């Protein structure tokens, strides 16, 4: 530039017109700008073109997830226990709001909420987040939804839609079996190798909802759409339809389930469990644990307050007592001990044993529940009167290990393998067990307690039902099953679960038939302790039981209703019917009952049996026997029990 100047100076008239070269300098600047721009265009469009184009694509193409509705869980007759219903939802697109404050106030009035909740939920999003909908309220009532809908022109930016929501029409009914759902937790999300789940997804948390998650869930679909900058759908590019979750048909009979739950309503304290099985195949017909909870509360994300309430509730509503509750089986165990006696040949059922009301062993005296004693009793009379002394003697004769051997044949002392979480194994005591578990020698007196199902013995209601199923079906152990079949959502593909394992025990069918005979007497005989379980037109067998919670010293001299609830005995009853080829077994446990098994538990079993036989009248099976017809003639349905009650 400096060099050029000199050239200018020498030219005459250079002052008049700008120098050619100086204008050229401006031209050079402009050409440089042009070259830079073209190079930049080359860089952006050719070199980085593909990358930027894919970002443009991501900008405008969104993949929407199409949620698959969760499959239904239905009872054996197709009645829904868990289903999915649409829930009305209100969302806001912040960018499209008019007067936000005013709109929140209007909404707050419709929804009976505080408008500050809404402004807090929305906040002040910036950038593209302004276009993304924020959920304000879900599961509105029809009326609330209609109010918002009819004012939508005054509420720009407020949109309503529906979202699938889990619904349990029976509320707390069968809650422990169905389980509950909730948002997936981060731990499970981290373990999920397939990208099936993402944060915020709803999954089964317990019960069948959890156990059959993959079947119930279905397969999410997707839709690729072109959206504009406001996220509005412009066109659909392609779509993969979601596959709705499959149906699960349970073995449960909702009628039985309901009648059992209704029966529990009248129980003081309302704590306990009931299991009804079909002894022929192990199908669970009813499974109740009281108190229960309403899984609907979990469906929308349970509040921490409600959750704390459930957790800290001293009646423990979340616990599934039917499989997790372990109770001393009490006198229901006498059926097991009698089977052992007959099978081992140490017991002659016709031989009479004298019951003076107590039994002496060394320096100890063991009382029969009946103070005055039963007098001379044979097996049938011992069973129907639930004579303790008869079984003390039999137990001593057999020894604890022989009793344990037979208890195990009945499936006691180990999990049944039902597909529910938290199943407990119960406990069948033996010499070896005590050595191992406690490091102590077995005492003979403990055999006395064991022979009437007290002491160390523990069983779950499900185990009791299973044991009586084996007794009823002539010695076959079926694993209890809950699922009748799984189906695709439209019923197209049916899958009957693999035959659950069963084992034919070496129990003698004739012995079992003889035991059933004495159990039938327990219910059907006029003085039978189980007579509250009688059902019109059906021959029922069963055994009562009362298990002590504390030793007698605590409650001596108190009237039954004066005893504090937690010191009261548990009442048990296990029944089967009809007498020939039993179709149903019902086990009932009532915690801290006011009366014994015969007074408290038997009427509940009776209600379930009544319901069952109303639906399945006896006759097809011709199961009434001539021998007991005579007696059933004088049987009156009389659940109120007299003073006489076992202990």
């Amino acid at each position, binding site marked *: *530039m*400096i060099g050029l*100047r000199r050239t*200018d100076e020498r030219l005459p008239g*250079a*002052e*008049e*017109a*700008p*120098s*050619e070269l*100086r*204008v050229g*300098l*401006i*031209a050079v*600047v*402009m*050409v440089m*700008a*042009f070259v*830079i*721009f*073209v190079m*930049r*265009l*080359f860089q*952006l*469009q*050719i070199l*980085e*073109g*593909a*990358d*930027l*184009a894919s*970002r*443009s*694509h991501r*900008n*405008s193409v969104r993949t929407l997830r199409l949620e698959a509705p969760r499959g239904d869980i239905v009872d054996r007759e197709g009645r829904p226990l868990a289903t999915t219903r649409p829930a009305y939802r209100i969302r806001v697109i912040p960018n499209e709001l008019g007067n936000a404050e005013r709109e929140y106030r209007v909404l707050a009035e419709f929804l009976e909420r505080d408008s500050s909740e809404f402004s807090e939920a929305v906040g002040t999003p*910036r*950038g*593209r*987040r302004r276009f993304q909908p924020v959920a304000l309220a879900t599961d509105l009532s029809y009326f609330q939804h209609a109010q918002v809908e009819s004012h939508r022109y005054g509420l720009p930016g407020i949109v309503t839609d529906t979202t699938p929501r889990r619904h349990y029409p029976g509320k707390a009914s069968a809650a422990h079996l169905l389980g509950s759902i909730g948002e997936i937790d981060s731990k499970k999300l981290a373990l999920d190798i397939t990208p099936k789940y993402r944060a915020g997804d709803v999954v089964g948390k317990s019960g069948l909802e959890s156990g059959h998650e993959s079947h119930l869930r279905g397969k999410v679909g997707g839709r690729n759409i*072109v*959206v*504009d*900058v*406001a996220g509005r759908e*412009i066109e659909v590019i392609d779509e993969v339809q979601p596959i709705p979750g499959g149906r699960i048909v349970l073995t449960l009979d909702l009628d039985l389930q309901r009648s059992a739950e209704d029966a529990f309503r009248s129980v003081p304290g309302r704590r306990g469990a009931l299991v009804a099985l079909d002894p022929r195949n192990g199908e669970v017909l009813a499974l109740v644990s009281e108190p229960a909870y309403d899984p609907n509360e979990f469906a929308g994300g349970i509040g921490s307050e409600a959750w704390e309430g459930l957790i800290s509730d001293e009646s423990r509503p979340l616990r599934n007592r039917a499989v997790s509750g372990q109770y001393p089986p009490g006198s229901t165990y006498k059926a097991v001990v009698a089977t052992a006696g007959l099978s081992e040949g140490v017991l002659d059922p016709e031989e009479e044993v004298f019951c003076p009301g107590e039994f002496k062993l060394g320096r100890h005296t063991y009382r029969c529940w009946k103070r005055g004693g039963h007098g001379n009793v044979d097996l049938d009379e011992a069973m129907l009167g639930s004579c303790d002394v008869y079984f003390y003697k039999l137990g001593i004769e057999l020894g604890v290990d022989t009793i344990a051997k037979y208890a195990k044949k009945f499936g006691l002392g180990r999990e049944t393998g039902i597909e529910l979480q938290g199943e407990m194994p119960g406990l069948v005591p033996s010499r070896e067990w005590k050595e191992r578990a406690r490091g102590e020698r077995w005492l003979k007196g403990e055999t006395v307690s064991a022979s009437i199902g007290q002491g160390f013995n523990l069983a779950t209601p499900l185990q009791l039902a299973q044991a009586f199923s084996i007794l009823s079906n002539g010695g076959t152990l079926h694993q209890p099953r809950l699922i009748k079949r799984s189906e695709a959502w439209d019923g197209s593909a049916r899958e009957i679960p693999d035959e659950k394992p069963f084992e034919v025990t070496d129990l003698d069918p004739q012995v079992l038939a003889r035991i059933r005979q004495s159990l039938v007497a327990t219910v059907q005989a006029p003085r039978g302790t189980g007579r509250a379980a009688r059902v019109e037109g059906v021959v029922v067998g069963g055994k009562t039981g009362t298990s002590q919670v504390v030793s007698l010293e605590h409650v001596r001299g108190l009237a039954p209703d004066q005893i504090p609830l937690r010191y009261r005995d548990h009442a048990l009853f296990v029944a089967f019917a009809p007498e020939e080829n039993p179709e149903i077994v019902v086990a009932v446990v009532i915690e801290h009952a006011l009366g014994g098994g015969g007074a408290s538990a038997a009427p509940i079993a009776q209600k379930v049996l009544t319901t069952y036989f109303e639906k399945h009248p006896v006759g097809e099976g011709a199961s009434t026997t001539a021998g007991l017809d005579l007696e059933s003639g004088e049987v009156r349905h009389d659940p109120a029990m007299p003073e006489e009650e076992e202990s």
Partner: protein
Amino acid sequence: MSQFDRRAIQNFDWVFLALILLLLLLGLINLMSAAAAGVEGGFSGVVRRHIMVMGGALLVMGLSAAVDYRHAERFAPIIFLGALFLLALTLVVGVMTRGAQAWLFKGGSFQPSEFAKVALVIMLAQYFHRNPPSTIRRLRELAEPLMIAALPIGLILLQRDLGVAMLTLLVALTYLPLFHIPLRAWGGVALLAVAGLAALWSFGLKSYQKQRILDFLEPARDPLSSGYQAMQSKIAVGSGGFLGAGWQEGTQTQLRFLPTQHTDFVFSVLAEEWGFVGSTLVLFLFFAMLLWGLWIAHSSKDGFGAMLAIGLVGTLFWPAAINIAMVLGLAPVIGVPLPLFSYGGSALMSAAIALGLLLNVSMRRYVF
């Protein structure tokens, strides 16, 4: 007079006019795509108004070409004072739009600062005709032209339109290479400029303006809000690829991911839909027009005509350069429209005046 007219018509610069008309047509076609995405005022409203403004612009261009430009030299102080008056008036009764008080009348329909650039160029051309740049050898001799330029720039700064003030300064600086001031003398100016920029950053810039500069330096800083425009523009340009998405087919444009796609970011639309081939061609035509303008300056036998032409090319070059640099992510986001392509009345009118005057100088270059 009639003799002059005939010679002027004989010497009419048809090539330059052809370039102008071609660019205007391409601008209209591109705007029709940008407006189809949905704009304030609606597609037909925007396109109709743009065609009307174009008609007016052609008329104004014809007028600016017809009346002998040498009258402009005589009336330069009056034109300049008129422009200053309009700028001052805007300060008093102007309408506040987009953070600047730069518009007369409601709805941003008339922007005096657009015309002030042309008026300043006329004034400076007169000054440099009387004081030829080649005689200017000392920095202090620049004091007078600087004061002339400072008047409109100061008023525009008072309107708080920093972008346009800077642009007007750049237009004035177009004359810089013409001075015969030794290079070393510029050292002090450079120091002053750095100090001035530092002062500007600390005291003169609003926070959103600082944001834009920071976003330019680091585009990923805040891609969802303040850096959004620049990011989306780069995505739009890049996704055009070699041949482009096709007219009205660009997703960035049509789905409105591009902000202000019909005004400041109109070149992004072009780049996305017409690709590397189309946008390079348009750039080529635009720069050909500018260089042709410089050729007009060079060919002029009249010092005022030459100075005027250089300044007028500056009024077209600088907004175009800043706009394209911004669109391509080479400069921070400054709201400067692209002449002949962006939607907007005042900018198109002032461009029409500048182009008309260039035609004017061109067809009268043989007068002497």
